[in-house]
């Protein structure tokens, strides 16, 4: 059964249909990519799925349950986690605290336990802390754990966001341009990370302009243009689609792929 099911999703800003009648599904362990020109509506689609925008029409189903328009924190409770194209970092908090925030659902407890620092709270916090450190190590930020997050470089922040998203222990992970700002070598690391996650059964929904990455790891690709789905299929099919080449990939694609 599909973990995430999107049907007929649409939203308008002013007169503009930013996303129009988009449907697809993602199964556990699958990597589905959404590609398309700038302004095609990819981020907007993510924002609707993750509850930041309320869809104008259509439905989002998570694990078979209709979750259309639910608040982001409710969706997080149901196993959905994401990163942002425009970084959303807790700048003033330390790197470790950023990841710990991702553990909120696992470490939260009754408020009086927090106020009075009851042992139960400390136990939960310790577990979260250990988990967070392991995650930081995984994205190679363990050395910076005590630094203020605002002092990291752009690329490091991108990785921090991924670590935080993983802290939720999600069933489905939405990644919005995770490789932006990373060089080829760094992108490869992200490639491995995503594949590994999918291997462990997490469903991945990916937006990315790095075609090398997309073509290599996606099991399924959805192409958006002007808010509409213009093509979908496996990487090979999509990259040969003339409409996709015209709207998005361009003719220079082969050359790019060769380097």
């Amino acid at each position, binding site marked *: 059964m599909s973990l995430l099911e999107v049907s007929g999703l649409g939203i308008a800003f*002013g007169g503009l249909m930013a996303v129009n009648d988009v449907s697809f599904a993602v199964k556990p362990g699958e990597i589905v990519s959404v590609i398309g*020109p*700038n*302004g095609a509506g990819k981020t907007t689609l993510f924002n609707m799925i993750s509850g930041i925008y309320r869809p104008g029409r259509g439905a989002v189903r998570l694990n078979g349950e209709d979750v259309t328009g639910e608040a982001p924190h409710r969706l997080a409770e149901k196993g959905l986690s994401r990163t942002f194209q425009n970084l959303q970092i807790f700048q003033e908090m330390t790197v470790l605290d950023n990841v710990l925030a991702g553990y909120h659902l696992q470490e939260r407890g009754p408020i009086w336990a927090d106020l009075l620092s009851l042992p139960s709270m400390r136990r939960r916090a310790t577990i979260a802390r250990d988990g967070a450190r392991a995650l930081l190590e995984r994205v190679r930020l363990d050395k910076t754990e005590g630094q203020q997050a605002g002092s990291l*470089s752009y690329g*490091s922040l991108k990785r921090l966001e991924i670590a935080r998203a993983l802290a939720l222990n999600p069933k489905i992970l939405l990644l919005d341009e995770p490789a932006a700002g990373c060089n080829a070598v760094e992108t490869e690391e992200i490639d491995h990370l995503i594949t590994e996650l999918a291997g462990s059964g997490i469903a991945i929904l990916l937006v990315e302009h790095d075609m090398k990455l997309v073509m290599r790891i996606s099991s399924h690709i959805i192409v958006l243009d002007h808010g509409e789905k213009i093509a979908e299929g496996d990487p090979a099919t999509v990259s040969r689609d003339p409409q996709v080449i015209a709207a998005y990939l361009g003719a220079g694609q082969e050359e790019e792929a060769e380097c």
Partner: protein
Amino acid sequence: MLTVEGLRSRYGRIEVLHGIDLEVKSGEIVTVVGANGAGKTTLLKCLSGTQPVSDGRIVFRGESLNSVPAHRRLAHGLAQSPEGRQIFTNLTVEENLRLGAYLHSDERVDRDMTEAFALFPILREKRNLAAGGLSGGQQQMLAIARALMGRPSCLLLDEPSMGLAPLLVAQIFEVVTELKNRDVTVLLVEQNAYGALRIADRGYVMETGHIIISGPAAELIADPRIREAYLGL
């Protein structure tokens, strides 16, 4: 045209540029590549004056820029398309572009704007909308277009291809080449090192606040160290 000597810069007590020497000759495209956190952005911020320099000299067209405040540097001919785009989110697209030409008030401003719209037609479509509502890639285009509106003689681009669709990435690199033909000097920081080196005349490689390798772009592409560490080949 632009010479940097022994440039050092720090955030608080932590120094992140440890003496950078770099030169950009008039009409050149020079690219700087390096891993996350190497200090590329910091270098560009020092050049545009938005990050204090703790030691070293920045000389632009024979004049020292060290004591020139950020807002005067565009008048000297130095424009930047910064990391994170830094557009005026509450103003419209058109207002953003108009402010890019803040120092100018002749009729060429309108022409420049038409040119910018020709370059990125989507911006014309969205000219009266708040820039904050643009998609990530559209904002990136706006940032580049705004920098061009200042009619720089030297353009600093911090990862201009970030977030752009493949078609546009190619287009950006074309634009940069085109600028060169118009005698605009370009200092390009890129993660798409391969693309950047291909259009550049020369390149620098940065690592943890130092320049470790420099040379003609073609040589760098061929350099096995670079191929492995930055091009992923």
